[in-house]
């Protein structure tokens, strides 16, 4: 006879606590998964910068001048999303490597790889070169 189930009030409180916890967990998960997005955006644009330079050098028939990174050296550092006190912490360093492989006499496959922290992103592009 002394055995009692949950009261309505207990159920309401339990539901509230669980829903708050779930909301916090969902938001934290989103932030963790998406936390590096701005750095990834920068890496994509950095790769495009190098590919633009490779295309330009290929158009001049001067692929020998291609280095790992021919772009603006200042772009190899980025803070991601930052506030006005960003200078208190060091920027994230990006590393760009470029590999060129011959597909045939007139085509070269350019692979640009950008690495930062523990991440890596890679793009390939075909560029046309004049016959020697």
């Amino acid at each position, binding site marked *: 006879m002394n055995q009692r189930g949950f009261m309505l009030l207990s159920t309401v409180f339990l539901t509230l606590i669980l829903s708050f916890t779930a909301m916090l967990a969902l938001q934290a998960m989103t932030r963790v998964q998406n936390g590096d*997005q*701005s750095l990834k955006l920068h890496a994509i644009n950095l790769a495009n910068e190098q590919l633009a*330079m490779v295309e330009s050098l290929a158009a001049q028939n001067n692929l020998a001048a291609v280095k790992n990174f021919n772009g*603006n050296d200042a772009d190899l550092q980025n803070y991601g999303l930052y506030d006005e006190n960003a200078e208190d912490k060091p920027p994230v360093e990006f590393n760009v490597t470029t590999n060129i492989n011959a597909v045939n006499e007139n085509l070269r496959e350019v692979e640009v790889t950008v690495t930062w922290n523990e991440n890596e992103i890679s793009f390939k592009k075909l560029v046309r070169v004049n016959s020697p």
Partner: protein
Amino acid sequence: MKNFHYVLRLTHCALNSERGFVLIEFVIALPLILMLLYGLSQTVLTIFSTAQSQAADYVLEVEAQDVLTRITKDARAACYVKRAVTYSDQDFDTLIINYHSIKVEGSLDIVDVIEGRVYIVGNKPNYRLQAKRINDGTFLNPITGGNFFGDTVITCLKYSKLGERVMHIELEMKSSVTQKFIRLSTAVFMPACEHMEGF
């Protein structure tokens, strides 16, 4: 009758056992309830402010990438690009892109239309990027800013020449909600570009 008196006595006893809060219980319970409510309200506020700042950060990233994508896509097919200073006291450049080989405006034949794109950052207080088809055309709706989930302003938009027919674009934007900045840079190769002016 005997039973009736017994029931009355039981009811009387039961009524006497019911008690409300005494003052001391209330004094102890009130701060506890207030502390619980304070914690709960702080949790609710944190949840909503986090959601708001996350949405604002997302808008900032998306708009910054959208600006670079639009400009690089338009500049890729350019025959002629011109850089001009928008405001002398700001880090903004105006970019004029022409797809037609004619470089001089005015006295054109009716079929000789200069097709192009002009990117300019609007003035205070919004600093939104605007675009129009031709130099003397009408501005379209602003490309950046005015988003319900987080307004943004452009704090830097510079163009420079990085190589032969290569234009370097440097963009910095700020979220009006979180006061955070994002800085992106890229370059675009313009294979058909005959002239880069003002770089």
